[in-house]
C-alpha cells in the first residue's frame, strides 16, 4: 500500500500529464472560440417569465406576435424551449423545439402550467389528436377486432395489417403527426398539434420564412398565433376521407389527372394534384360562414371526454340555429373560462351584458348565438362579427309526424361524395414510406378506386347517443371493399397472394353515417326519397308497383337492380342492403347504424306509391301526407288498381 504522503513512481506521471494537457487544451479552445453577441450587459437581457431571456441577444428584432404571445411578455424559450441562459449559439439552441405546438412536446410548450395546460390536455385526448375512431374502424374492417368502437391512437400503432395500412396511408391526418418544418399552412399541411390551426402567416411572414429556407437569413416577422381559424386551416386534413372541406365549398374530387381537367366545366387542381369539379356549395358557405362559425372550440379541440367517433364529439346541431322555440340562454357570468377568453380575444362588443344560447345537445354555451332584442336567437360570425339571418324550419319540416325521426340533413343535403367500389391490396414486393416512422418499409398497401360520384346520400338509421334514440340520417358507402394480401402482412405467412388470391380476400359492405356539409336551402323532393331505390340503400334500379288487392295487404313491389351483382355477397355492387329484407350485422362502420329494415322499406315505398298519382302539393299534403295512416284507411277504390311504374 502507498500512503497518501508517499510519492508516485515516475512511470505513472505520464497519464496524469496527458489528462492535464487535454484539459488545458480544451479550456484554451473554450475561451478562444467564437464569442456570443457583444456587448453583453444586463440591460440587453430582459427578464421574462421570471428569468433572463438570452434569446434577445440575437432575436430582439422579432415582431408579429400578438400581445399575449409577445416575446417581451413570455420570451422565446417559453414556446421554443432551448437554453435561454447561454450566449453560445450552439448551446442556446440545444433542445430547441422548432414547431412548439407539436403534440409530442406540447405539455412543455403551449401546455406548460403557466399557459394552456387545460386545453392541451383536452386536445391530446381529443379525436383530432388520437384518431381513435379511424383506428378502431380500420381494425374492425380488417377483421382484427369485433367492434368499430374501441381503443386506438394514431400515435401508438402496432405492426398489424390494419395498423400498417394506417401507417402508410392515413396517419398524417391527425394532430399528433409532428410538423418538422416551420411553414405556412397550405393545402398539403398535416398535423403539427396546436399550430395546425393557430399559426397565421401574413404574406410578409410567409415570404420571410421562404427566404429563410433558401438563404438561412433569420426572419424578423414571426407568424401570428391566434384564434382566427380560417377554413384553410381545416383543409389539409378535412379535404381527405369524407372530404367535408371540399364538399363545403362545393368541390367534388374526381379520379381525373390534372391534364384531363379541361374536360370539366368548372374545375380546380389541388397542390397534391387531385382534380376537383364543382357540384354546388353548402348554403352556409355561400352565406360566407366559416367552419368555426358552426363548430365550437369544444367541437374541434375536445371537451375532455374520450369519444369513439367524430360525430360524437360534435355538439352543434342544425336546430341550435334553426329553431322553433326561443331556446335556453346563459349569462356572461355563467360562461366557462375558455368561452370568456375567446370572447375577450375577439373583443366582442357588449359581451358582458349579452346572453348566450345553450346548445340543445349539451347545454354548453355557443358564444356566437345570442339573445336578440326580440328574444329570438341571433347569429354573429366569429371572425367577421357580422350578423346573419337565421331561418326557422319550414312548416313541412314538422308537419309530417312520421318524419320526426329524420335529421335535417336527410332532406337538406345537396350531394355527398360517393365511391362505389374499391380494392385495397397488400403488395409485399414494393416499398413505401411509413409515415409513422418516416422510414421506407418493405410491403405496400395500395388502394384502387373504381369511381367517385357526387350523388344525394343514401338514407339509413343511426343511433344518436346524445338523443338516446334512433334517427334517420344520411349515409355514404364507407366501403364496398375487398382487401387482398392481409395474410402476407403477417409474419407467419409464406403463401404469395397470386397463387391463391381468394383465400386471403376480405369483403366488406359497410356504409358510414355522414354529414356531408353540402346543405341546401331547398329540401329534397318527396319522390327523391320515396321512389329512389338507391336512396333506400338498394342501389340504382327500377321499382315497379303491382296491383294492390286489398286495404290491409302488403304492396306487391318489384325491384330490378341496374348494377352487376358482387360475387362476394350477391348484392348489386352499389347497394347497401337487400330489397325488402332486414340486414343488421356488419352493415355499417358505427355501432347502432344500419340500413332500413323490411318494414321501414315498405313504409317508405308505400308513400312512394301514393306519390305516383298524388304529387306533394299543399292540398295533397294536408289531405294525405300529414295524416298518412288515416288517409290510407280512407282510400277510394281507384287507389286499389295497378299504378303506373316508375323509375
Amino acid at each position, binding site marked *: 500500500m502507498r500512503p*497518501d504522503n508517499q510519492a*508516485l513512481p515516475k512511470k*505513472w506521471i505520464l497519464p496524469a*500529464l496527458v489528462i492535464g494537457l487535454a484539459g*488545458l487544451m*480544451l479550456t484554451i479552445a473554450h475561451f478562444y472560440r467564437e464569442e456570443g453577441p457583444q456587448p453583453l*450587459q444586463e440591460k440587453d437581457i430582459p427578464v421574462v417569465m421570471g428569468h*433572463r431571456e438570452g434569446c434577445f441577444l440575437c432575436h430582439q428584432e422579432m415582431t408579429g406576435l400578438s400581445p399575449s404571445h409577445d416575446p417581451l411578455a413570455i420570451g422565446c424559450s417559453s414556446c421554443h424551449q432551448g437554453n435561454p441562459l447561454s*450566449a453560445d449559439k450552439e448551446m442556446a439552441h440545444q433542445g430547441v423545439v422548432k414547431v412548439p405546438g407539436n403534440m409530442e412536446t406540447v405539455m412543455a410548450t403551449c401546455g406548460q402550467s403557466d399557459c394552456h395546460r387545460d386545453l392541451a390536455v383536452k386536445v391530446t385526448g381529443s379525436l383530432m389528436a388520437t384518431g381513435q375512431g379511424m383506428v378502431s374502424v380500420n381494425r374492425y374492417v380488417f377483421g382484427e377486432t369485433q367492434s368499430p368502437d374501441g381503443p386506438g391512437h394514431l400515435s401508438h400503432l402496432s405492426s398489424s395489417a390494419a395498423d400498417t395500412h394506417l401507417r402508410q396511408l392515413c396517419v398524417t391526418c391527425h394532430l399528433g403527426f409532428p410538423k418538422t418544418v416551420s411553414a405556412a399552412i397550405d393545402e398539403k399541411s398535416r398535423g403539427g398539434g396546436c399550430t395546425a390551426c393557430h399559426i397565421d402567416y401574413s404574406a410578409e411572414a410567409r415570404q420571410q420564412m421562404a427566404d429563410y429556407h433558401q438563404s438561412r437569413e433569420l426572419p424578423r416577422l414571426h407568424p401570428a398565433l391566434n384564434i382566427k381559424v380560417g377554413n384553410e386551416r381545416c383543409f389539409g386534413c378535412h379535404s381527405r376521407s369524407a372530404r367535408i372541406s371540399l364538399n363545403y365549398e362545393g368541390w367534388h374530387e374526381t379520379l381525373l389527372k390534372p391534364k384531363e381537367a379541361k374536360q370539366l366545366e368548372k374545375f380546380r387542381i389541388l397542390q397534391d394534384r387531385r382534380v376537383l369539379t364543382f357540384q354546388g356549395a353548402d348554403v352556409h358557405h355561400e352565406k360566407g360562414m366559416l367552419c368555426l362559425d358552426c363548430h365550437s372550440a369544444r367541437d374541434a379541440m375536445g371537451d375532455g371526454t374520450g369519444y369513439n367517433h367524430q360525430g360524437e364529439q360534435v355538439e352543434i346541431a342544425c336546430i341550435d340555429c334553426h329553431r322553433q322555440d326561443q331556446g335556453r340562454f346563459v349569462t356572461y357570468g355563467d360562461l366557462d373560462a375558455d368561452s370568456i377568453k375567446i370572447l375577450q380575444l375577439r373583443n366582442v362588443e357588449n359581451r358582458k351584458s349579452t346572453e348566450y344560447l345553450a346548445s340543445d345537445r349539451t347545454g354548453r354555451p355557443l358564444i356566437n348565438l345570442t339573445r336578440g332584442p326580440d328574444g329570438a336567437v341571433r347569429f354573429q360570425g366569429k371572425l367577421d362579427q357580422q350578423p346573419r339571418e337565421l331561418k326557422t324550419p319550414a312548416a313541412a319540416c314538422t308537419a309530417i309526424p312520421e318524419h320526426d325521426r329524420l335529421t335535417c340533413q336527410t332532406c337538406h343535403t345537396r350531394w355527398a361524395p360517393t365511391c362505389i367500389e374499391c380494392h385495397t391490396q397488400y403488395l409485399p414486393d414494393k416499398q413505401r414510406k411509413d409515415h409513422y416512422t418516416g422510414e421506407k418499409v418493405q410491403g405496400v398497401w395500395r388502394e384502387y378506386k373504381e369511381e367517385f360520384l357526387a350523388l344525394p346520400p343514401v338514407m339509413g338509421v343511426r343511433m344518436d347517443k346524445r338523443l338516446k334514440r334512433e334517427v334517420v340520417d344520411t349515409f355514404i358507402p364507407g366501403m364496398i371493399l375487398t382487401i387482398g394480401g392481409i395474410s402476407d402482412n403477417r409474419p407467419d405467412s409464406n403463401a404469395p397472394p397470386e397463387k391463391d388470391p381468394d383465400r386471403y380476400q376480405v369483403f366488406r359492405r359497410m356504409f358510414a353515417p355522414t354529414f356531408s356539409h353540402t346543405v341546401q336551402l331547398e329540401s329534397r323532393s318527396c319522390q327523391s326519397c320515396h321512389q329512389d331505390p338507391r336512396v333506400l340503400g338498394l342501389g340504382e334500379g327500377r321499382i315497379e308497383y303491382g296491383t294492390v288487392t286489398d286495404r290491409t295487404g302488403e304492396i306487391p313491389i318489384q325491384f330490378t337492380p341496374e348494377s352487376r351483382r358482387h360475387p362476394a355477397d350477391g348484392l348489386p355492387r352499389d347497394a347497401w342492403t337487400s330489397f325488402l329484407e332486414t340486414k343488421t350485422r356488419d352493415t355499417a362502420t358505427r355501432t347502432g347504424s344500419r340500413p332500413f329494415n323490411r318494414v321501414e322499406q315498405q313504409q317508405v315505398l308505400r308513400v312512394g306509391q301514393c306519390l305516383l298519382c298524388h304529387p306533394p302539393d299543399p292540398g295533397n299534403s294536408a289531405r294525405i301526407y300529414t295524416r298518412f295512416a288515416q288517409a290510407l284507411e280512407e282510400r277510394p277504390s281507384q287507389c286499389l288498381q295497378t299504378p303506373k311504374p316508375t323509375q
Partner: protein
Amino acid sequence: MPGSIFNFWNLRCSTFGNLAFAAFIIAVVSGIPLSIAYDVERASDSLQLILLTSQSAVFFRSLHYWSGQAFLLFTLIHVIEHLSKNSERGLKEGLWLRLVLALLFAFFVMVSGFILKADVEGRMARQILSGLLEIIPMVGTELRIAVLGNADSLKLIYIHHLITTTLFIGIVIIEHMRRAWPELLSYVYLLGVSAMLAVLIPQGLQLSGAAKIRGPWYFMGLQELLHWIPNPLVVMVLLTGGLLIFLLLRWMKGAGSGWTKKGLFVLLVVYGVLTINNWGFRDANWNSLFF
C-alpha cells in the same frame, strides 16, 4: 479483495485521499471568482447573468461544480478504502469524531451549493431539506433556522457554504492528511478532468418545472426513500441510525465490526440501486419503468 483493488489503484495513480484533497482545493479556488459575481440577494438572477455575459464565469462555475462532485466522490471512496483496511481503528477518537462530522459537512457543503443555484431544483432541494430538519422532534425548527436560515433568504446558507463548512472541512483534512498540500499529480489529474467536464458539460440552471426536477445525485436515493416511506420521520431515524452505527465503527472489534461493515455496504448498494432508479428510470411525473 477490496484492499487489493485500492492497492492496484494507489500504485498507478494519486491516492483517493490526495484526489479528494486536490478536488477540495480546486473547488475552493474556483469558487472565489464565482463568489465575486454571485449576489446572494438576487441569487438566481446573478447566476443567469453570469451564464449569459461571461464565458470565463461560466467556465469557473462548471469547474467549481465538477471539482465539488469529484471531492465528494473521492471522499466516499477514500472512506470505503479506510474501512476495508480497518484503518479507522488507528485513528484517535477525537479525530475520528471530527472526520465523521466533516463527512456530514461534506454532504452539506454540496447540497448547500445546489440550493444556492436558486433555480427550480435548488428551491425544491431546500424545501425537502427544510422539511426533513423541521420534523426532528423538539429541536427541529431551531436546527432548521441554524442550518438554513430564514425561508426567504439564502444568506445563512451562503455563509455556511462559503465559510463555516469549508473552513471546518479544510482544517479536518489537513489534520487527517498531516499536510497542507496534496501531491502535485493529483492537481494535474483533477484539473484536467474537471476542466474537460466543465467545457464539455457546462452547468446551466433548471428554469421550468415542466422538465423532470432532480435532486443532486447523492440525494437521489434519499428522494426515493422519501417516496417509498411515507413518514419522513422514519427516514430521518434511519439516516441518523446509520450515521450512529458508522460513528461506532471506530470502537467495534472482531466479527461484529466485519458484519457491521458488510451490512453498511449492502445498505450502500441498496441506496445505489435507488439512486439509479431515480436517475435513469423515472419520468417527469415520477413514474418509474422499474418499480
